[in-house]
């Protein structure tokens, strides 16, 4: 992670394994923007700076630009496109393509993390339902990806790729808890995950599936779940 004092005056309040924070790290790397990375130890409590920067939700990631806070990962990524127009953009320029990119990033946002959480947190019927939903989500994304190298299509690696890539290390955990294989349910997504994982901005922002799995174990202990 970049931690030198930034000439672009950017600071990122983040949590190492957060897929939402990772979206921002990926975007910053794609744009080659230096920034100060600040690890918030969320399991120990929230810092004053975090509480002041995001008083409404008290969540990371928070991007501070010249001290002014921008909250919510997808909003931050769009902000980076708009505030740094001379850097490679993650959203395409065509209005319809932009709308589609926003739609699918929003879909990932609405569906993946919540469903995944239910998958590892719950048991019995509710877990079975989460499993069914996860398969549906993966299949829907598989259809959208199709034979494209990236979700961004002609544009290349883009907004939706950055939005979804951080969930790829979570696939192994979803597979274990849901007893399925992404490669069987959504082979194109599995192939995309491997491709995208090799991209420099993504590789240096994500942690291994084992680390994610261990983190889930820590959370389960914390919530008193077997």
């Amino acid at each position, binding site marked *: 992670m970049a931690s030198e004092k930034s000439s672009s005056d950017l600071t990122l309040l983040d949590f190492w394994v957060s897929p939402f924070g990772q979206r921002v790290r990926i975007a910053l790397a794609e744009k080659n923007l230096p920034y100060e990375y600040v690890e918030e130890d969320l399991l120990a409590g929230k810092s004053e700076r975090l509480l002041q920067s995001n008083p*409404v939700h008290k969540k990371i990631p928070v991007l501070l*630009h010249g001290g*002014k806070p*921008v*909250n*919510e990962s997808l*909003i*931050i990524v*769009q*902000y980076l496109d*708009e*505030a740094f127009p001379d850097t490679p953009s993650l959203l395409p320029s065509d*209005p*319809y393509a*932009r*709308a*589609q990119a*926003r*739609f699918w990033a*929003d*879909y990932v946002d609405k569906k993946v993390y919540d469903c995944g959480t239910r998958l590892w947190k719950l048991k019995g019927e509710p877990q079975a339902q989460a499993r069914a939903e996860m398969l549906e989500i993966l299949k*829907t994304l598989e259809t959208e990806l199709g034979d494209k190298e990236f979700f961004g299509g002609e544009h290349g690696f883009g907004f939706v790729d950055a939005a979804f890539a951080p969930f790829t290390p979570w696939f192994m955990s979803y597979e274990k808890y849901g007893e399925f294989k992404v490669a069987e349910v959504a082979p194109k997504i599995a192939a995309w995950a491997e491709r995208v994982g090799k991209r420099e901005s993504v590789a240096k922002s994500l942690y291994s599936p084992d680390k994610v799995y261990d983190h889930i174990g820590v959370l389960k202990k914390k919530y008193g779940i077997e």
Partner: protein
Amino acid sequence: MAMEKAAAENAEKAAPLKLLGSWASSYTHRVQLALRLKGLEFEYAEEDLGSKSEALLRNNPVYKKVPVLVLPDGRALAESAIILHYLDDAFPSARQLLPADPFDRAVARFWCHFSDDKLGPAVGAVFASTGEEQEAAVRQVHENLALLEAELREGAFKGRRFFGGDEVGFLDVVLGCGSYWLAVFEEVTGVQLVDADAFPLFHAWLRDFEAQEEVRETIPSVDRLLDYARGLRQMLLAMAAGAGAPADAPTAAPPSAAPPAPATADIAVDI
């Protein structure tokens, strides 16, 4: 080159946009209002949410919801906030709804998400519940409104007549198309949601918003909204009480009234 540009502009004006919507859906109203504010012509098709059209299912296969904007070439867009962004992008010479400054845009998007994620569901929860559960939901609504009031009073929107500044903008459309439900729900549930004393700036904003010509053209009459809300409240309470079998619920609406009660998830009793 000049002639090609003129032809393209004419095509842009001549070809109609088509909006699939539902008369009581505040998400639909957002798009209608945006189109009117921008002076963009459009055709409107009312969807029976209890019996969705093939066009809706084909154009929004992921969510199967309104609103859906269908472009002249047949391509479709769903999700109201995304449609509003598209309209700004696709019609750059028409009135822009989002602010120009990147930071202001981020703030507008943040509160839009807050409206859809927190405030709207909280208001919906008040409407769908009773007793202690409702009391908790009311407290939630008040907490959420207090946050907006604070932003109007001393935060991001300090000193502004509208969230967009001197004129109605993106966040006004998002919050406004839905806020009209507050007075309706107050009437139907007997619960106070927006106290003018507790939320003076929000109250004043809402009054100014609702006085705008394009808004008056877009929001259905209070009587229709009250009728709809009363029927909906009955149905939701019946479902909550477990007497939710279709035969028991008051889905047989009087002939003159609104379309049959749709699935709860489709009902934009939202804000």
